[in-house]
């Protein structure tokens, strides 16, 4: 038993393990970069880095082909920690190395936390528009809204992860059960013709439009068009099965149980305790050319309690940070009248900055100590008179 523990300790503190993991890390980055042409940046992050094992489909069978980012990064973290615990003794002369390694540990933990916690959204605003929510790039949700009340809407959302599982959802705020009958992450909407196959939809736009599943696209200039067939099941007269798609402009309405409802599939929303109004979007070009110089959005930030009511300028490399969210200028469209902001929620956003600062200070201290020691040694050598 003792031998086993010692072997384990020797394995985890080994410098050979560090080198092997760094080589694996480089290979991982290289292979993932090549695979980016097939999957796009988001796809490879999930397939190669934010996973313990990289799986590849070969002739319909998923095979593990490489250790994933979590595996390599996790082992590297263990290796670093173990080496420090087992070997390292703190002395003033090694303070720089210690701080550098601590920074590296923090960087690895920061990346892990970013992978787990970071959420990306976008906010699309026309000039004059006010919004208090941002929308997800990738996640979608079915939103069922009780619109009977004249002042407020009561919303129940069902994430696409449940739709993919063909889940049946009974929510206490809904008088019916929601059953996902089909979910297509990418689809093509077509008009139903005489030759079309029978539709799953029994009501709404699905009577006219049909969604055909398509392979998912990862190209940067294409977008997936998710669609779903959702049945609303009630004890008495069920509202029926709807075709929902992010490709359909507006929610579909129906009445049930004496109340008015609307149902839609839309990008997942996060509502914020403040609202943003696009006052003006500017697309500056270099004089006499069409070459872009700067993109910026003048935004009015308002909170319902009146605590904040101010204008801010969001431009490239100059984001707005507010209430735990960061708003970056990400794009524009509609002849420069619509601005697209990227909205990022990452509670661990400061960690990489702190980690890099620690590593910098550590390296400067370590090299500084060495330099001072070297200079002192050299001086001492020079001051010794030559013996004839």
């Amino acid at each position, binding site marked *: 038993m003792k031998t086993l523990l010692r072997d384990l300790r020797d394995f985890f503190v080994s410098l050979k393990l560090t080198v092997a993991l760094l080589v694996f890390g480089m290979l991982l980055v290289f292979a993932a970069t090549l695979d980016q042409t097939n999957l796009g940046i988001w796809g490879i992050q999930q397939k190669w880095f934010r996973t313990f094992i990289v799986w590849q489909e070969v002739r319909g069978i998923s095979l593990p082909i490489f250790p994933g980012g979590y595996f390599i990064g996790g082992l590297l973290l263990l290796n670093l920690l173990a080496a420090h615990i087992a070997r390292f003794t703190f002395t003033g002369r090694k303070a720089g190395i210690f701080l550098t390694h601590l920074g590296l540990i923090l960087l690895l933990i920061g990346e892990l936390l970013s992978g787990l916690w970071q959420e990306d959204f976008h906010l699309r605003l026309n000039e004059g528009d006010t919004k208090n929510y941002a929308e997800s790039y990738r996640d979608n949700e079915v939103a069922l809204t009780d619109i009977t009340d004249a002042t407020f809407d009561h919303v129940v959302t069902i994430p696409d992860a449940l739709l993919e599982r063909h889940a049946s959802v009974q929510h206490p705020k809904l008088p019916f059960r929601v059953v996902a009958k089909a979910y297509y992450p990418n689809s093509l909407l077509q008009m139903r013709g005489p030759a079309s196959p029978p539709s799953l939809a029994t009501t709404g736009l699905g009577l006219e439009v049909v969604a055909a599943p398509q392979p998912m696209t990862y190209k940067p200039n*294409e977008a997936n068009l998710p669609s779903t067939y959702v049945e609303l099941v009630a004890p008495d007269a069920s509202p029926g099965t709807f075709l929902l798609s992010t490709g359909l402009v507006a929610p579909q309405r129906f009445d049930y149980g004496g109340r008015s409802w609307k149902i839609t599939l839309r990008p997942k929303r996060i509502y914020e305790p403040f609202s943003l109004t696009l006052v003006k979007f500017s697309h500056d070009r270099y004089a006499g050319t069409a070459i872009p110089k700067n993109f910026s959005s003048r935004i009015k930030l308002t909170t319902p309690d009146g605590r904040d009511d101010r204008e801010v300028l969001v431009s490239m490399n100059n984001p707005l940070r507010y209430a735990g969210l960061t708003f970056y200028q990400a794009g524009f469209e509609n002849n420069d009248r619509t601005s697209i902001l990227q909205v990022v929620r990452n509670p661990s956003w400061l960690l990489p900055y702190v980690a890099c600062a620690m590593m910098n200070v550590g390296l400067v201290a370590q090299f500084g100590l060495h330099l001072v020691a070297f200079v002192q040694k050299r001086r001492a050598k020079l001051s010794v008179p030559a013996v004839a």
Partner: protein
Amino acid sequence: MTPASSSSNHCLRSRRAALALALLLAGCGKTDPASYRIPKEKDAELPASMTRPAATAPTPAAAPGGPLAGTAVPPAGGPGLAWTAPAAWQPKPVGAMRKGSFTIPGDAGATADLSITTFPGAVGGELANINRWRGQVSLPPIAENDLAAAATRFTANGLPFTVVDLAGADPANPQRILGGMTPYQDAMWFFKLTGPDALVAQAKPAFLDFLKTVKPVTP
């Protein structure tokens, strides 16, 4: 405390810790339904053919064409097109799915609507889209052989346009659609002017000139 209860407590604590960790790793209930109350929101503009209650049969006029032209979309991102509209056209806020939107004012308060939308892929091809528009103004579908006669083609700024002029067949409500489409970067872009027959006919030269201003956005 008996060893058994201590062990079961320990087990419970471990389970709780595992559950907490699982929740943390899963991003705290990302897959659960949620509910909330919000102040009333205005929906995206709905084309007339879509403003009918659910669970009713499609109207004959809507059946072959239906709402799809009004619903086109591609969720944003990627390269786009830019255009220059006549000063008299009033730009409207784009809905969630429109790339551009204008009101074309006419006499006696009449207005026509110009929508600019785009769909990934070929969206069923030219014929299907033209027949969809024909359906919206109560015209019968045409066959592949009739396509050459029904559509005008030209190229502007490197973009090949197919344009149709569809005068409605309903004398009680004479509507007209001027539709232009062009493929660009794996997507089909639609420029559709809809409104009263006389107004749309009058706006046709301006619409054609407008299409000639459409060009890819300079990166």
